[in-house]
């Protein structure tokens, strides 16, 4: 028996077969009728009691979207999506917005408990400083946000974007669509028309956000798309670390997830944005799974500002995602650290864009792709140096690891430099897990699965160590690995 076959089985076991979050919560939901037209958008807007300007913005996006064509340049293949066969709104039936966790449907609380997401503040031990605040988005709406009061003491606003529209309209109006305009691309434009909820973060001048902020996305209802919108604003000199996680029930049909994330960092501000993406990936034959078409972009508006993306992508049938940085401010810094694991029939086309506009801007890209089964894993990245980006620097490293002989790894870097003082470096490697490595580990007593985990963990180390400590464990478990670096 060839070790590679074994390895494929092992990775298989680590991902699809052991998808632990595939359960469905039986809860009464209110949905919009299937299909998408202006009435759907008015329905969503009315449900949320939105101001007229936002409805107008949505409708403008929708009209624009109708004239757009779905992009086809990515290395992913899927049957056409029927946009009229999707519910664009699904929300658990509850009273208005719950004032406290006591008013949240216990069934929902149990769901998050099952997912390992703490939603009950009071369950923390007395005297222990909370380290993570959570916003829980269930289908189309945010159902709870923890530690809001504590964060308010620091002037930090952390709430659902619906609540932000209501309570902080001036901030939302100023920044919404300022990084990803409503006309940006097919999926972002669709999102602008129909987004239902998401998280909003505002960190005032000079404040270091005292907790990790986290949003946990859950798609539950059937035939429903999730279109969330996240907006994070870091005022001058502030710092925030934010993490999103996502899971969905195991279903035979594909579900669409088209999110937009916008980040704004002013002078000397830093935003660290981490993702542990574990949407249902479909079964071993490629049946079911989430279509994850996401637009994430951060603007380093201010001098010496910094935006850092870290992503661990293990789920979804299709991932189409390029978290990017627009480096406007002089001396601003963009970072992208990525681990993308694909198995079975999964397809991932992911990477980043670093747009250097300001002087002495710097960017770092570290991408680790691991492909197994019959999956296809593509890194696609753009580094653009604008004429005014005097002294700009970029370093890119793309490593691919292949497991078995039926998968593919592809690296597609685009480099455009319009300034002679800029320095751009690109390194790429492709390797296979070797039988020598596996046998060496097994001779020392490690089972096949542990051996693969250890080797893959080592391969991803550079990226995993960028995750906030609170979430590193979840990510490591996801990659199926033992704790690295606990000694020595």
């Amino acid at each position: 028996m060839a070790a590679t076959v074994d390895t494929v089985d092992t990775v298989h076991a680590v991902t699809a077969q052991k998808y632990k979050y595939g359960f469905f919560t039986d809860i009464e939901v209110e949905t919009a009728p299937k299909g998408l037209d202006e009435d759907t958008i008015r329905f969503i807007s009315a449900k949320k009691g939105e101001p007229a300007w936002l409805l107008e913005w949505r409708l403008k996006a929708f009209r624009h979207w109708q004239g757009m064509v779905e992009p086809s340049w990515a290395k992913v293949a899927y049957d056409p999506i029927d946009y009229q066969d999707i519910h664009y709104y699904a929300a658990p039936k509850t009273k208005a917005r719950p004032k406290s966790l006591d008013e949240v449907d216990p069934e929902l609380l149990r769901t998050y408990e099952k997912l390992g997401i703490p939603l009950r503040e009071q369950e923390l031990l007395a005297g222990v400083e909370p380290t993570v605040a959570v916003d829980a988005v269930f289908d189309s709406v945010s159902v709870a946000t923890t530690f809001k009061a504590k964060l308010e003491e620091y002037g930090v606003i952390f709430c659902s974007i619906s609540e932000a529209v209501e309570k902080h309209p001036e901030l939302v109006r100023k920044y919404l669509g300022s990084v990803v305009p409503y006309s940006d691309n097919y999926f972002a434009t669709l999102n602008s028309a129909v987004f239902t909820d998401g998280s909003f973060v505002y960190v005032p001048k000079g404040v270091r956000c005292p907790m990790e902020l986290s949003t946990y996305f859950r798609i539950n209802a059937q035939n429903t798309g999730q279109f969330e919108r996240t907006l994070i604003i870091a005022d001058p000199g502030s710092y925030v670390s934010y993490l999103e996680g996502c899971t969905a029930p195991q279903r035979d049909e594909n579900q669409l997830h088209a999110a937009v994330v916008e980040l704004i960092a002013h002078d000397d501000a830093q935003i660290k944005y981490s993702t542990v993406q574990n949407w249902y990936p479909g079964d071993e034959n490629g049946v079911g799974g989430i279509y994850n078409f996401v637009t994430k972009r951060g603007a380093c508006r201010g001098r010496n500002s910094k935006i850092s993306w870290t992503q661990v992508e293990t789920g979804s049938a299709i991932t189409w995602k390029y978290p990017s940085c627009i480096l406007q401010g002089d001396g601003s810094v963009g970072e992208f650290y990525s681990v993308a694991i694909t198995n079975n029939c999964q397809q991932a086309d992911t990477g980043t864009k670093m747009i250097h506009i300001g002087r002495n801007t710097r960017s770092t890209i570290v991408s680790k792709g691991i492909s197994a089964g019959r999956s296809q894993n593509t890194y696609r990245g753009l580094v653009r140096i604008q004429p005014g980006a005097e002294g700009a620097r970029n370093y890119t490293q793309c490593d691919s690891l292949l497991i078995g002989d039926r998968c593919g790894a592809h690296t597609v870097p685009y480099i455009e430099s319009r300034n002679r003082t800029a320095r751009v470096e690109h390194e790429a490697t492709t390797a296979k897990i070797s039988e020598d490595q596996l046998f060496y580990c097994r001779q020392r007593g490690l089972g096949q699965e542990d051996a693969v985990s250890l080797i893959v963990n080592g391969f991803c180390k550079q990226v995993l160590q960028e995750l906030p400590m609170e979430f590193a464990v979840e990510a490591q478990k996801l990659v199926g690995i033992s704790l690295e670096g606990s000694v020595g």
Partner: protein
Amino acid sequence: MLEIKTLHASVDGKDILAGVDLTIGAGEVHAIMGPNGSGKSTLAHILAGRDGYEVTGGSVTFAGQDLLALEPEERAAAGLFLAFQYPVEIPGVSNSTFLKTALNAVRRQRGEPELDAMEFLKLIRARTRRLEMSDDMLRRAVNVGFSGGEKKRNEVLQMALLEPKLAVLDETDSGLDIDALKIVADGVNALRGPDHAFLVITHYQRLLTHIVPDHVHVLVRGRIVRSGGKELADELERNGYAEFGYDEAA
């Protein structure tokens, strides 16, 4: 403790082992010497359970178990250790993590409690001191950027940690200068005792002046053609393998 009976094996249809018989008692040190291509490393790999070899006849019993029926990791847990001729690099995995993972994997299989970080640290520090290894080598990725001598010392460190019933040393002396050779030999000699047997595979007699064997066997064309005491090694050093139909210069 180890009993090999008329072991036949082939690679890609080509016979490499042609009926090997060998018995090693607990705590004994045996050396297998032989010219290149005689099947020495094949024997080591078959004992450890490497893929790619077909056993076409014979049996191997280890500590009362049918060794050939076990997975490589089960053999490790049963107390069989192979010191590799070419230790493998594992980028990104620190040596200490690798050692701790291996030790606890073996302990788990043996039904022993796993060591926590502090207990492990204490144990590993004691072992590295004995092998004159720096702590720095524990922090570096497994065998990555290690010199030839460091790699072999690392093999001996793993052996000292896992305390096997039988350690198979596959040409551990190749590529070592005399200082490194002595450190490796000291590591082996320190572990020598009634519970720890060794099978030392080597081309040269050199290592056997530092690790003095109880028995020496000559393997030629897949068969043990002669066995004797440690003086047999000296004889081979003087006369080479010519008397067995091998011309070293060829």
